[in-house]
């Protein structure tokens, strides 16, 4: 029997635009860039609002609630120790339909994930970052 440890998450390079997204979990906060003029959420983070052309765009905490936009249940062990099946998903923020986050759905069996399922953020610490994951709001 293999005792290979599970592969660690491949973490992102951090820059001035994405730092708050990947570190907000320390304080339990999911933050998304938002226009200070018209209120539009901009993701991935860009210090420019494509709706009103304002440069007053800055990170702001959101509710952490979202819906499953699409998902897949992975069954292939791509690396030694990788536990499968697991769910890769795209979720849309409750605040705005066109903000999608890539994530893993946790806290329920992989075959329990459905389209439009309501989910909420949880954070997994990894080195100096906090990786946002999502779990069902209500157990299916």
């Amino acid at each position, binding site marked *: 029997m293999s005792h290979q440890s599970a*592969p*660690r*998450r*491949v*973490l*992102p*390079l951090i820059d001035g635009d*994405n730092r708050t997204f990947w570190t907000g979990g320390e304080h339990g906060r999911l933050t998304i860039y938002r226009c200070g003029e018209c209120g539009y959420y901009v*993701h*991935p983070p860009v210090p420019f609002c494509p709706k009103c052309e304002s440069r007053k765009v800055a990170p702001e905490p959101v509710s952490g609630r979202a819906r499953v*936009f*699409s*998902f*897949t*249940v*992975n*069954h*292939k062990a*791509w*690396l030694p120790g*990788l536990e499968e099946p*697991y769910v*890769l*998903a*795209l979720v849309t923020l409750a605040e705005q339909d*066109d903000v*999608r*986050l*890539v*994530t*893993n759905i946790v806290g329920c069996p992989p075959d329990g994930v459905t*389209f439009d399922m309501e989910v909420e953020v949880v954070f997994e610490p*990894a080195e100096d970052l906090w*990786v946002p994951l999502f779990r069902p709001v209500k157990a299916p």
Partner: protein
Amino acid sequence: MSRYSEKDTAIVGIGMSEVSRGASKSALALTVDAALEAITDAGLTRADIDGLATWPGEHANGSGFSAVGCATLQDALRLEVNWYAGGGEAPGQYGAVFNAIGAIAAGLCRNVLIFRTMYEATARKTGFANALMKPGQRQGGPFAWYAPYHTYAAALQQALMFNLYVEKSGIRPEQVAQVPINQRRNASLNPKAVYRTPITLDDYLASPIIATPLRLYDCDVPCDGAVAIVVSRMDVARTLPNPPVRIEAVGSSMRYRNSWAQLDAFDTQAQPKVAKMMWSRTDLTTKDVDIAQLYDGFTFHTLNWLENFGFCERYGAKDFIAGGTRIALEGELPVNTGGGALSGGRLHAYGAVHEACTQLWGRGGARQVKGEPSVCATSTAGGPLAGCMLLVRD
């Protein structure tokens, strides 16, 4: 003077190396084989080649995704060119062709050698290899949004799109299966195809799930191989031995969010506006198309292209391909006539353009489509990438 510069260009020669699940020679040797064959087929010599292009440029990282770039091939063949380009930020793999059209229109060159080299079969025998990331290293760029979530292959990103398409279209696995079954049948008639033993519906349904709803037989086959084509200015093309395969129209736009996560056409991929652009540049319509070489990195791409080119309506691919007769070699729209990437090997759209010319020049042998096909629609790429061309034999 034509209004659209692609109409002043044509494919005049093609070449393909051995294609395998483990090459007998180096990636560069495969590339040289394909390049020399294409130049000879065009009735040209090395000295006539004055432009050089590839996509996505050399990735010297052991992944095999693009093992040879312009500089390496230029030196290997000691070409003397007026213009060259290789880069991935383009409308999919055909970006190299679109660049060449621009270079010819700008008067920079007349005969462009365009090539694509894959060495993924060998790369995967020697270790974990993918085109996306290296585990253990922090990830920059757009893929950094996917990397932390155990996204170890493009198959996972594509499965997200495929699953939404299944949800919206209601297509069933036994319907999807017609794409790989048809292509394996075509591959059985193609001596160069990697996998040539026909498969059945039961084989498809029994193939392992990679990431729902994607099965193994929905995925193209990593291979070692190289393809080259020569694209020439039309006045030159008309002096050469092969009937020019004119580039009648191209689709190269980027009018969606260019993102694997935020793409605002998720279940159709970035194809509808690209196809619309292509049709806006020609008087021809879907009714004029004799054959189609549609991108098939995954079966779902081919389904999408059938719809987005307009061969059938949105979510109508499942009915269009029902029973497999319409897309067969004898059907009204033969699709991926050489077996495509699913069975022929992942030559990444350049296998498709090679097969298009093979059919348009009547060289298809046992798999030749009857009736001297003269118009081919061909397309490339999935997700936020898309590019397409309409090819017409003079």
